[in-house]
């Protein structure tokens, strides 16, 4: 099977899974004891007003009609109005989603590159002191409690030393200034991004390093490594060209598996650093019982995870030509 048919099959699978998640979410919101109308009614409304609003929202219809409306609304991008912001939910989501993708993708790619590189080298020193200590250091990084290390970094780098801004994503003065060019704005965002990026980087690098190291140790025992050495290749060549590419495969798999877990971490990091991303928006919406916003944010986060999984699968198929799906 070629890449195209793999892509097609995985896309259909993702659509099915997403459909199940959507349905589950719909049923959950229906099973919840709270009444969404009570959140929207204020004292000035007459009972007729309330009735009209119920009819307008379609809440007097049978459940399966409501479900069909829900599906239709998703595909037309109509998620209702946020209780808190009083703006269409889709607007808020489309503002926040790029910020999350920017932070999350940068952190994941940088951490994967650094972790794989370090793990590759460390595996070659198996049993030596440097290996033991690096492994322990990576274990520590990997198990650091994310919100706490974020708070600590804010306290140290932003408050104590004062190198970075305390929170947020941009300085208002720069963004309202019409003379500020694209470059100034980009530098400003980068300045705000460095600290959350560093936090995610440290925690993720630890786990990539550990996976890459154990994967390398498995690969080293293979016969083709022996062959490569017997051919008289240098140790560096054996490591970089014969061992590392093969050791990369399990790393890619585990990246896909741990994706959901790192989304949790991303949402926590966004919240602590007040990074205006979709994870923070979800947590915020949940704290304020903003049902439409919470529901839409959750659906989009699920979509991001599923698409990222798809990308990981494609990467795997690209890296390992032996794999046929």
């Amino acid at each position, binding site marked *: 099977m070629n890449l195209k048919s793999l892509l097609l099959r995985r896309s259909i699978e993702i659509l099915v899974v997403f459909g199940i998640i959507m349905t589950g979410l719909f049923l959950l919101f229906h099973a919840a004891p*709270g009444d969404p109308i009570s959140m929207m009614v204020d004292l000035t409304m007459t009972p007729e007003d309330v009735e009209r609003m119920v009819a307008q929202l379609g809440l007097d219809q049978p459940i399966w009609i409501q479900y069909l409306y829900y599906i239709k609304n998703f595909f037309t991008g109509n998620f209702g109005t946020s209780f808190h912001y009083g703006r269409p939910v889709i607007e808020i989501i489309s503002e926040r989603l790029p910020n999350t993708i920017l932070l999350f993708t940068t952190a994941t790619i940088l951490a994967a590159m650094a972790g794989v590189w370090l793990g590759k080298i460390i595996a070659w020193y198996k049993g030596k002191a440097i290996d033991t200590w690096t492994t322990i250091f990576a274990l520590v990084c990997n198990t650091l*409690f994310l*919100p*706490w290390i974020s708070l600590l970094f804010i306290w140290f780098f932003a408050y104590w030393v004062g190198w970075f801004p305390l929170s947020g994503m941009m300085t208002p003065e720069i963004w309202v200034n019409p003379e500020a060019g694209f470059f100034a704005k980009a530098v400003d965002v980068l300045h705000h991004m460095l600290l959350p990026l560093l936090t995610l980087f440290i925690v993720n690098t630890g786990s990539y390093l550990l996976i890459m190291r154990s994967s390398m140790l*498995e690969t080293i025992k293979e016969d083709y490594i022996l062959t490569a050495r017997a051919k008289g290749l240098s140790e560096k060549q054996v490591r970089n060209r014969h061992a590392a590419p093969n050791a990369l495969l399990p790393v890619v798999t585990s990246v896909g598996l741990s994706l959901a877990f790192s989304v949790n971490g991303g949402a926590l990091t966004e919240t602590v650093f007040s990074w205006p991303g979709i994870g923070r928006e*979800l*947590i915020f919406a949940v704290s304020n019982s903003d049902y439409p916003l919470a529901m839409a944010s959750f659906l989009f986060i*699920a979509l991001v995870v599923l698409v990222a999984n798809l990308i990981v699968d494609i990467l795997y198929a690209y890296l390992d030509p032996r794999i046929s799906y």
Partner: protein
Amino acid sequence: MTITSNRHAAYSMENVIDKKTRRSYKRQRFSAGWSLFYKNMVGKIGLYLLILFGAMALASYIPPLVDPMYHPMTGVDPLISYASPPSWRHWLGTDNIGRDIFSQLLTGARVAFLVGVSAAFISIVLGTLIGMIAGYGGRIADSLLMRFADMIMVMPSLLVILLLSVLFGQLSIWIIVILIALFRWPAVARVIRSQTLTLKKRPFVDMARVAGASHIRIIFRHILPNVLPMALLYMTFRVTSAIIVEAALAFLGFGDPNTVSWGMMLQWVWKTGHMFQAPYWLLPPGICISLITLSFYMMGRAMEEVLDPRLRKIQKADYAAS
């Protein structure tokens, strides 16, 4: 010959090796495994840390007995009603309403153990059962269960639990434990399934079947003992993730308000705006969460080396080479 007599034959075959030799064999295997575990530095550090936290959890009952003001939740120092730095009276200082941070920290250890171990246990039981059924059962059961597991695996558990807490109101600590367990079994089920798939093909399972053992008997009597070590190993990893999820929930303000967990303490520092003024309050709970997850993780990795002969061989070969 009737089926019952076949079953009797199966029972007697299992008892060919007498109990005494079996016990001594088990003891030998245990001590060999233990010495391997203890030689491993990572495992040793993990074990010491774990003993430390166990002692903390046990010691958490002492402070409230000394003076009611040391009660972690309700005890307030009558003289102090602000965040105060460490002193002889309060070894780690007090929080913003005069509660003792040290006794809160000790109680946090108890909550972490409770949440971690019970959530991990539930998820291991679920994962092992589902994994064995998927591996042993036919193709349909296998693909259905594993697809379901895959689906749960892509869900960000913390965010789903958050969503549930907004829909169903404040969650108690036991509901949180159960929810964490419900999201954490798929990885276990995958591993147990693949082990069951290879075990199923082994001669002793065929022999049991020929001897007339039922499916349930084969699963629980012949397959379960063989996958149990792996399940226990995964339990240590589940403990770490359960503790992290509970701490994160509490940190965001969705924990059980009747418990004092480390995540809750961090939330208090953060929400009351003391994180810049009171490092003595910010540091301890975070260090404890990070270290307890580290210790379980380290134990797990060391146990992995004991249980997985392949990992052991590399080490021996490596030592021989160097």
